[in-house]
């Protein structure tokens, strides 16, 4: 194992607060959130919920990617290809076909957005049949890999809202075990009626912009987007003299094994994931300068995650914030979007704010950062937790 971890040499992102890394950074620094009423498709829930929607339509995304009109990219694949292309450009990845390059994507909704739209016609008309094979989660990864021209190890992870963190972890392990030299990792999810109605039935959607870690938080806002990182081995970086954006030094995955959707009261899964990530990074909790929390703003998550953080950091909880009030909860993409934000935090020596925070939770002895804070950061921990008790933590360290 290399001492410095796995190098991040490129990143790309599209979210409700921007279509490039720079736009996202600018929104974070300006405290400009991306929540709105849903516009890209009609739904009964329109006036009841706020979403972190990317306003580019599917046609605009297709055109920007230069796809033919009869393509069968779902929105999940379109957002993914858009972000992954940027990641490749930022890593200056043209050429170098001698390297063993892989692509590990993740998604939870897959092609559901098109199935819910055209499914009712499939049995009576062949018009939209080209979207039938676009339904499975893995199809979006194939489409993106094909678009990027990647041939080799291509696969997909789906662990609900912790998916992208696990895709990033899988990529790092592939490099560390010397199976790959370079891997593009991340996740993508589009908003769909399926997911917004699903979360609505769980009664955990807020009817206002979300307030992570606030005593009066009322639930989450859903979002959409995609983000990808280019990970490379230290050997390749040195041989090619590449610029490194940050190092992925730690990762941990654990299961809460408590309930199908709810997190345990003491945040056992979250605690174990953070503990494992620290062990892999060979860091003490005190070395963490900022925590980009999962912080969905549901009553259950924030209490459970907060308790887990207090168990890890004791009375010295580092500055922390949830960036979900900016983007909404982007489900499978969240771990990758927040990985980009964690790396930006390291590069800019900046802690992004936790918007809309007002009243501390009485169960916890910790308060998130409410305004942009400039301070020197060496190590950032990012949490992603999902249904099914899937908990993952990543640690990024300054290049």
């Amino acid at each position: 194992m290399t001492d410095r971890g796995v190098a991040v040499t490129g990143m790309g992102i599209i979210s409700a607060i921007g279509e490039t890394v720079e736009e996202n950074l600018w929104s974070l620094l300006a405290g400009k959130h991306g929540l709105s009423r849903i516009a890209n498709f009609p739904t009964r829930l329109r006036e009841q919920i706020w979403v972190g929607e990317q306003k580019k339509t599917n046609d605009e995304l297709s055109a920007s990617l230069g796809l033919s009109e009869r393509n069968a990219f779902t929105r999940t694949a379109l957002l993914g290809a858009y972000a992954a292309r940027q990641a490749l450009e930022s890593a200056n990845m043209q050429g170098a076909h001698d390297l063993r390059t892989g692509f590990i994507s993740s998604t939870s909704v897959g092609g559901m957005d098109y199935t819910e739209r055209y499914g009712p016609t499939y049995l009576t008309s062949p018009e939209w049949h080209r979207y039938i094979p676009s339904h499975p989660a893995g199809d979006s990864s194939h489409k993106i890999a094909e678009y990027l021209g990647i041939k080799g190890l291509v696969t997909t992870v789906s662990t609900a809202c912790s998916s992208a963190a696990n895709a990033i972890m899988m990529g790092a392990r592939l490099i560390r075990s010397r199976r790959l030299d370079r891997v593009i990792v991340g996740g993508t999810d589009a908003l769909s009626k399926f997911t917004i109605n699903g979360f609505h039935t769980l009664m955990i959607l807020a009817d206002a912009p979300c307030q992570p870690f606030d005593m009066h938080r009322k639930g989450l806002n859903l979002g959409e987007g995609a983000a990808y990182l280019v990970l490379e081995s230290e050997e390749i970086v040195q041989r090619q003299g590449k610029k490194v954006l940050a190092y992925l030094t730690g990762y941990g995955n654990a299961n809460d094994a408590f309930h199908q959707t709810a997190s345990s009261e003491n945040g056992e899964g979250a605690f174990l994931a953070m503990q494992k990530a620290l062990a892999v990074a060979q860091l003490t909790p005190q070395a963490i300068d900022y925590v980009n929390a999962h912080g969905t703003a549901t009553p259950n998550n924030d209490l459970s995650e907060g308790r887990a953080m207090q168990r890890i950091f004791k009375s010295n909880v580092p500055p922390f914030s949830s960036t979900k009030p900016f983007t909404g909860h982007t489900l499978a993409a969240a771990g990758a979007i927040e990985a980009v934000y964690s790396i930006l935090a390291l590069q800019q020596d900046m802690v992004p704010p936790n918007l809309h925070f007002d009243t501390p939770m009485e169960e916890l002895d910790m308060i998130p950062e409410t305004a942009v804070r400039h301070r020197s950061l060496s190590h950032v921990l990012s949490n992603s937790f999902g249904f099914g008790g899937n908990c993952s933590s990543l640690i990024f360290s300054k290049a």
Partner: protein
Amino acid sequence: MKKSVFINGIGAVTTQGIWRSEFFSEARVLDHAINAAEQPAYKGFISPGAIRRMSRGIKMSMYAAQQALGESFVTIPDAIITGTGLGCSEDSDKFLRSLWENDEQFLTPTSFIQSTHNTVAAQIALQLSCKGYNVTHVNGASSFESALLDTLMLLQTGEEEHVLLGGVDEIAEQTYSFLQAGGYIKTGSVRETVKTSVSPGVNYAEGAHFFSMSAGRVASSYAEIIDVKLQNELEGSQMRSFLQDFLTTKDLHPEDIDAVILGYNGDENDDLFYDALWQELPLATPLYYKHLSGQYDSCSAFGLMVAAFVLKQQTVPSILYWNEKIPPNTTWKNILIYNQYKGKDHSLVVVRAC
């Protein structure tokens, strides 16, 4: 130093029933377009409180997981890793239908909660109180091999000792009717086998297959997994280098492979790939299994059961031979499994007698 990885226990619920010693001798060739797995009695096996919400895929997996762990005397594995192409389709279908039928009203949470792809791995973790590493891989025909790759990395590095590895896909009426409309599954009235297939599409099915994988060999060990390789796309002309590159990294030559398990499924275009690989291994005995398992994304896990069985028993049940002419008895040491679907998601796995 990389550790060796062994299959120490198997469990399955398939179209050929549950995993048992007569599994292959009692097997029958499938000839329906859609073939349901033969379900065991779950009562007394899964608590009534838990079973009432479970779809077929979850129930089959709970059963197969327990069987695999039982065979290997592992109570709680260190990690649970599954592969599934379509995930929990039955619950996805259910939620989607009620979304359409009730125009986004009166929707209930249970089917949504259980529609996520990671439901199976999560439910097993919940049932076993297994707080370890837990990941679900979802990548079409290489979903299971992706989970296998993940498993190998955990065990070879010594990070974990015991991993529960599974591959599962379930029949869901609506999803399969869409695949039928799209021409991927044969039409309902067709009665063809993999060998007699002339109509478009293939016979589809479902199944759950679990493997108790460990970094140590025990009395119950079936075989050792040498390695796995994944490739998203491949031209027929690249078959030779695809195979050679993989074998070379494992210090193997084509003549070392005693049997090759091919994913022939009766689709002309799919079968061309298997012909091409077989050509590169003239000395290996070709075996097949999709005439027994049916096609579904994680069906190649059935192929791994075939390899494990042959290597442990040192005998090939006659129903598995692709060629009518059964070759003379031999010892079986190295078996290669090759799978792909529609020219995508190619995977090679080498399994060795232990």
